[in-house]
């Protein structure tokens, strides 16, 4: 075991490690005034490169009017183990939801 040189692109499971460029998360805005939503991720060397890759991968068919790219490392995510304490308490309290209001006519994006 110790005679085997370490393989930088190998993992214990045998799957190749991600030896690509840094990962960026891509957010697309479908239309003016609409919220940005997460579209996926791309590999890129820098922000401008990430923007171009995001455009080519997620917006080449006219899906977006604006793009955000964010280094994946800049995102703090909740863990699956947080799901219970974070989200369960919200499920059984109807009074938390403003569901007794009517949306004004003409409002399309809410």
């Amino acid at each position: 075991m110790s005679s085997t040189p370490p393989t930088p692109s190998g993992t214990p499971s045998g799957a190749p490690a991600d030896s690509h460029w840094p990962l960026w998360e891509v957010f697309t805005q479908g239309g003016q005034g609409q919220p940005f939503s997460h579209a996926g991720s791309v590999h890129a060397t820098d922000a401008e490169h990430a923007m171009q890759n995001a455009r080519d991968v997620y917006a080449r068919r006219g899906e977006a009017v604006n793009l955000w790219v964010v280094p994946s490392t800049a995102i703090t995510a909740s863990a699956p183990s947080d799901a219970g304490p974070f989200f369960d308490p919200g499920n059984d309290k109807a009074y938390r939801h403003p569901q007794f209001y009517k949306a004004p006519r003409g409002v399309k994006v809410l």
Partner: protein
Amino acid sequence: MSAAKSAVRSGGGHDEGDDVGVATGQAVAGTRSVAGTRGPVLGAPLFEYLLRLGDDRLILGHRLSEWCGHGPILEEDIATANMALDLIGQAASLLQLAGEAEGQGRDEDALAYFRDGVLFRNCLMVEQPNGDFGQTMMRQFLFDAFSVLQWEALAQVSHTGVAAIAAKSLKEAKYHLRHSSGWVVRLGDGTAESQARVQRALDSVWRFTGELFGRDAVDDAVAALGIPVDQAAMKSGWDAIVDEVLARATLVRPADGPMQRGGRTGRHTEHLGHLLATMQIVARSHPGARW
């Protein structure tokens, strides 16, 4: 128009001898044979001009499409294929217009798939093999810089068909230039290995750049038809873009040596025949097939 046409056919009446024109009596006259062929005989100027515009995009688009499935990374594979599709789309519009100008009932598919090499009018640069990724991007950058300026000029002309295609294509070309110039800078100002490779690519493709700004009787004739383009102004604009990007890429601009040309009159390098064999085989094996 008829005077212009006869000038093209006879190859006379143009100020040749500079380094950006076709040589006297060669090819343009249609009297000089190309090994084993009847030699190129140029058609009407507008038809010829639209073939030049369209064939540049068709052949470069095909070259880029060769990267499909072979890109260095998934994102770049998609980007390269995407640019190939843009270029082939531009070629389809231009060849359709060329077919209308010719008036022989040929559509863009007939012109793309049922024309032999000596009848293609693309510049030599775009038919050169891809080489490594850096070489492909360097060729792409040098062409994109030219293409943006060409579309900017053509978007202003009074020929409505050409101006409409130019306005649409300009947006695509600007994006291509942003992408390819980004790669030239990234590779040039990258590692010693990437810099050496991309400098070698620049040195090897440079001899094909002179042809981009050539002017001959076809250009003079279409100027009279409402498509005047100032090649000298385009060249100085191209020099500015190229110098700026090469400086950021820490690359050395090669000296202008002898320039290769001939594509505009159908005298191509051996690479075009191989490319066309691949590009045209399906259409020629199954003429009229639909799917």
